[in-house]
């Protein structure tokens, strides 16, 4: 079978070569004018311009609304707006230049009876097209920088803090417990198979922290994602919230944003009862880079509080780790983690 295909390919190549040779010989024999190909190329440029632009506008119009993920954050609406303003400006500039350029290519194709204009410079023209782009860009820069400053400004004091931790090839969310509302410290040397966060149990804020395999977010409240990575660089990417921030081992990064629509609301808006928010990894991190999906759910603040309260602290799930809690904090740890008291004495006894 492959033999036949191979022979077929060889045959086609040979035929093409013969056509090429014959064409060459004919050309030598006829001493044809060069103009015909020049005109064909000129016409092709014109056709390319016309059909290229038609294709571009038709597709963009026909699929309008399908190529942009719906937006669900406060700053996302602002950056989307800036994106589309830039789009309109650039599409206008692009279309004009595209038409002009290919029209010139067509209109000024070679004609042996014509001589090109000796037009080497013009200060007026050059100043015009230096100043106009500069002015438009200045507006875009000013707008862009003010948006950027808002996005990167310090978070509100009462922002909901959640830590996202990237590793090959999964995300985990680290929530502060409801009792202290503070994330416990971490230390990468304390990471092991169970203590995935490297939670430092000498810090009293760590006792009620919990782990989640879904990112729950309260609608309408500012969320501060603290981001870190355990092994290589990953990148927290929340397409619907227009959030992207690298997770870098050894460097803590963060991104603040405010979700504006619950998952339910988004299901209604998109007419898709199965809609889900998702988090992806946007920085190449190895073999499983494409599989770092992390589910995201946005709920009303009341529901969020209820969910928070129902979560079990990590320490309660892993009471063995009580042995790392300093003796003077053991009682506090028991209470915060919600561990039964007698368990603690037995633990301390075994330790001794």
């Amino acid at each position, binding site marked *: 079978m*492959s033999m036949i295909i191979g022979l077929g390919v060889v045959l086609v190549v040979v035929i093409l070569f013969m056509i090429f040779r014959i064409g060459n010989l004919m050309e030598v024999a006829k001493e044809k004018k060069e103009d015909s*190909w*020049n005109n*064909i*190329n*000129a016409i092709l440029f014109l056709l*390319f311009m016309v059909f290229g632009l038609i294709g*571009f506008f038709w597709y963009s119009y026909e699929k309008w609304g399908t190529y*942009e*993920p719906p937006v669900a954050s406060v700053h*996302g609406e602002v*950056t989307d707006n800036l994106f589309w303003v830039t789009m309109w400006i650039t599409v206008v500039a*692009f279309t004009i*230049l*595209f038409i002009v*350029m290919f029209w010139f290519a067509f209109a*000024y*194709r*070679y004609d042996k009876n*014509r*001589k*090109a*204009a000796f*037009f*080497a*410079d*013009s200060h007026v023209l*050059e100043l015009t*097209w230096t100043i106009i*782009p500069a002015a438009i*860009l200045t507006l*875009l*820069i000013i707008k*862009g*920088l003010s948006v*950027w400053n808002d*996005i*990167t400004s310090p978070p509100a004091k009462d922002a909901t803090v959640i830590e996202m931790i990237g590793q090959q090839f999964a995300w985990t969310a680290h929530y502060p417990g409801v009792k202290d509302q503070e994330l416990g410290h971490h230390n*990468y040397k304390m990471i092991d*198979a169970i203590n995935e966060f490297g939670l430092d149990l000498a810090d009293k804020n760590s006792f009620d922290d919990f782990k989640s395999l879904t990112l729950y977010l309260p609608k309408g409240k500012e969320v501060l994602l603290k981001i870190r990575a355990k*092994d*290589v*660089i990953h*990148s927290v*990417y929340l*397409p619907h919230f*227009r959030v*992207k*921030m690298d997770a*870098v*081992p*050894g*460097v803590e990064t963060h991104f603040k944003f405010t979700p504006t629509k619950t998952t339910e609301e988004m299901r209604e808006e998109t007419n898709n009862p199965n809609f889900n928010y998702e988090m*992806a990894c*946007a920085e*190449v*991190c*190895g*073999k499983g*880079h494409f599989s770092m999906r992390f589910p995201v759910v946005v709920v009303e603040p009341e529901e969020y509080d209820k969910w928070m309260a129902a979560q079990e602290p990590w320490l309660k799930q892993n009471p063995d780790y009580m042995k790392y809690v300093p003796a003077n904090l053991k009682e506090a740890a028991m209470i915060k983690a919600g561990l039964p008291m007698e368990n603690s004495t037995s633990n301390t006894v075994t330790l001794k």
Partner: protein
Amino acid sequence: MAHDTHTHDEGHGHEHHGNFWTTYIFSEDHKVIAKQFLITGMAWALLGGILSVIFRLQLGFPDANLSWLKPILGGWLTAEGKIDPEFYLALVTMHGTIMVFFVLTAGLSGTFSNFLIPLQVGARDMASGFMNMLSYWFFFISSCFMFTSLFISTGPAAGGWVIYPPLSALPQAISGSGLGMTLWLISMALFIVSSLLGSINYITTVINLRTVGMSFSKLPLTIWAFFLTAIIGILSFPVLFAAALLLIFDRSFGTSFYLSDIYIGGEALPNQGGSPILFQHLFWFLGHPEVYIVLLPALGITSEIIATNSRKPIFGYKAMVGSILFIAILSFVVWAHHMFVTGMNPFLGSIFTLLTLIIAVPSAVKIFNYVTTIWRGNLRFTPGMLFSLGLVSFFLTGGITGIFLGNSAVDIQLHDTYFVVAHFHLVMGSASFFGMLAGIYHWFPKMFGRMMNEKLGSIHFWITFIGVYMVFFPMHYIGIAGFPRRYYTWTNFETFSGFADLNFVVSVAAIVTLGAQFIFLFNFFYSMFRGRIASANPWQSNTLEWTTPRNPGHGNWPGEIPTVYRWPYDYSKPGAKEDFIPQNIPFSETPESNLPHENELIKLEGVEGNAIVVEEKKH
């Protein structure tokens, strides 16, 4: 003095004539070295293109059984006949590395800077032929290392062409970071040596070996572009070298320049205090100027070809030089726009947004000037001209999306999506590639003394031109939809579930475009031996290389080096008999077309030449 040495050299050249090794292999002649770079670059381009088609198979035909590729890919195919996800990353990485460095840096600058600088400034050869030869052979050894890395059992480097640590530093993170990465680093270190040897030579030649009368203000725009590219290279490549060296230390000697707080493979590494962000700063300090190292020569080539084939002076020569210069300077202060979302200080983000968007102004000026050059021209669509116009079109389409990406607030969403892939493949990838093809078609007659077939050239152009648009234009939509790059498949995500149709179109277009390059390869090798015999100046062009014989020998001009009297763009000058006046024609011979101030220059013609010669002798 300079002239004496040259005649001496020439004598030597003739003595060694006929020795295969010194003429074709270890040649010190800039034209032969240029051809060596060209052929090697073409081989790399073909390989880089094939790699991209293989990973496009995965993206465009996700369900296809690729076991027919078993003879080539062997163990890199899974049992179900799919590309291994890790090998997919290796393909992406090697495609990027090969195209950026081996094709568009060495293949483009190496070929045309070498070939054109001595010919267009009027020199017998490069300032140092020996260094020039070394430059090629360092590149060759570097190529060998990179090529070898494709065949080792752990696979080539696979952490992206930007080789961000810790991924590139830790073999336990990805198998390509084992021996493959070591070979990548050795190869790049040698590559940088090659590039620096070349650049020093280009700069020296342009400054010192210009012929009598060839002042900087009379240099063709090609030379301006090559000259400033070489300066950018000399200032930025050493920084990559330093970055690579520190990475080698981290990988092999236990240092912690880029590594800190890492827990991988069940153990916490001892490295502390390093920063992966430091690497990114160092990398992009080269990486961004690199974009212009790739692009500026292509723009220089295009300026020359468009002027020649429009039969019109390039519009705004001074503005063109000024914008290249401005771009070259700015290229050093925009690198961190690749790093808006790495967690670097947001204030830096603001600064780099500002500087990045400023670069759009000189770029826009260049486009406007190209368009004005063809306005009221008399356009001859030679293949070189077709590819040059294609370049301008890509530069426009791809450049305009830079305004989105350079704006940090907008970049948050677009960063590392297919929008970026579309942007840079058009503006630096395809544009530079078209510059290279345009250059080959245009200077082929001077390289090999024969013409390439123009019809095949046109067919090659139209398939490639439309093909490139079909490959990269749809990626804008995919990118706006948020699809992240370097993904093996998007099926794990509901958000990225669409656009299978566009990805299919892209892959088919990529295959067709690659196929069309075989037309070019055929045309190239066939014309080398059987093409129509070229005249000495087949395009009726003004620059000095066309004053050499059909097959310029060692030393380029059989007699005296021509003296230059005018700028290179006297096309269709009013009153002139022909529609071009080469640079070596004195104003005294063209009284019918001289502009008033040019008539004044006639008086200086004899004197000026002597003055410069006298000055030269003093050195």
